[in-house]
């Protein structure tokens, strides 16, 4: 016989602070919550998310929390005999083992492949207590040689990507740039000119400043119309569709992190 479920104290998109009781009754404690007796208590400042029986807190501030499968843009901090130590803006550093690099690399060539200070698009293959392992084997995972990096609060990444990549493809089409979003809040923008890249950066900044508004998609469309520099090109048709699909793949992880979906 199931226990009676008392209502969740906070609805969707309700902000909670540490120590607040967010649910009572037959619920399971998800991320950033603890269950004490009948009560589910928030352990972090964030937004309540309730699905079926699971209650969790979605963070909106704070450092990046690494998750297996995430694409992250990492900076080479140091080189050891068997790999590269990388900074990913998380509480812990990450490690890219030699054997996780698609090219054959001689130990003396390591600096030339990924040198200290280089930024590399990588994927997290495993997260254990304090060890985060990366790989560059895979499509789109490589050293960044050109373009521009935009840094944002990692918790805003889902909004920048949008539902099924809708927001990010809007940005790509409007600016004409290729964009790779790292779940750790680093975004790599590559256009045919600095103007294109700067425009993409501005759109991203606009989204990040307005993440809590309703109807963000329309707001962004409007802003783009009003602010687009005259001579910017755009990618159309098939190319645009392909980019959206490539994007949607890497954004599957992110959907589960989205908070309060926009009702469209």
């Amino acid at each position, binding site marked *: 016989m199931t226990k009676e479920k008392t209502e969740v104290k906070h609805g969707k998109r309700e*902000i*909670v*602070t*540490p*120590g*607040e009781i967010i649910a009572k009754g037959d619920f399971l404690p998800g991320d*950033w919550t*603890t269950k004490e007796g009948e009560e589910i*208590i928030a*352990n*972090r*400042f*964030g937004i309540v998310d309730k699905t079926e029986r699971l209650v969790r807190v979605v*963070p*909106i*501030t*704070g*450092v990046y929390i690494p998750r297996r499968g995430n694409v992250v843009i990492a900076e080479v901090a140091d080189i050891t005999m068997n790999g590269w130590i990388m900074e990913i803006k998380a*509480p*812990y*550093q990450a490690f890219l083992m030699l054997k996780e690099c698609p090219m054959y690399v001689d130990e003396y060539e390591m600096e030339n492949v990924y040198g200290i200070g280089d930024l590399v698009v990588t994927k997290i293959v495993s997260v254990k*207590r*304090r060890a985060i392992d990366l790989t560059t084997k895979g499509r789109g995972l490589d050293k960044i040689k050109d373009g521009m990096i935009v840094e944002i609060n990692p918790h805003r990444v889902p909004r920048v990507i949008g539902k099924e990549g809708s927001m990010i493809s809007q940005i790509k089409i409007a600016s004409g740039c290729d964009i790779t979003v790292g779940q750790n809040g680093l975004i790599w923008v590559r256009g045919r000119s600095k103007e294109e890249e700067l425009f993409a950066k501005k759109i991203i900044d606009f989204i990040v400043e307005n993440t*809590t508004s309703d109807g963000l998609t329309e707001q962004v469309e409007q802003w783009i119309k009003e602010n687009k520099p005259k001579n910017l090109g755009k990618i159309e048709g098939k190319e645009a569709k392909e980019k959206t699909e490539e994007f949607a793949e890497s954004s599957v992880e992110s959907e589960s992190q989205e908070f309060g979906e926009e009702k469209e």
Partner: protein
Amino acid sequence: MAEKGSYTKRIDGRSFDALRPISAKVGVVPNADGSAMFSQGDTIAIAAVYGPKTLHPKNQQNPEKGVLRVHYNMLSFSVGERIRPGVSRRSQEISQVTEWALTPVVMLEELPGTVIDIHINIIQANAGTRCAGINAAAMALAHAGIPMKEMVSAVAIGKMDQTIVSDVTKEEEDYKEGEAATDIPMAYLSNSKKISLLQLDGRIQAKRLIEALDAGKKACQKIYEIQKKVLKESE
């Protein structure tokens, strides 16, 4: 009950259990991972949190849990007679008791090998600076997304001759009549109501301590409501 004593009316006219006007804000230091300003009357504190980040050098890391590093500092122009910039014995002691006041709420076992730096600065001082600092630091920690079991709130309870008052001012600290002024800073955890900071400067009859602790509990509850409200309204 205890005798009435000489302090029948507060210097600033407040009732005995009234707090000074409080103002708080988060995000005041854009570079930090979390930050807050907290003021009680004329005492203004700002706190900024950097972390969690890997602690270097490695031999200082605790493999079981994260480490809190607290630095409390008063700006040279926060008081009447200028304070020479730098560390003083007083600021070292306050940094340590502040760290002890905050540690019970931070879930450091979730963050082994890391350090969370908490910087507290007092811009303007009118008593209760370590309490305002703790209040600001707790908000900054929450704002930085640090995993916390609950919040912590602090207040300085005083005894002016025979009268127990909440949230003392500097003028009250200088009260000289009868048994003069006793200053009792304390901090309560928001849910468990446990005490994580407790100091006393002055004298109090042992049987009256509970009265002071009760006054502190009520005052901290009010402060917690404000910390919670400001955090929620910040997003």
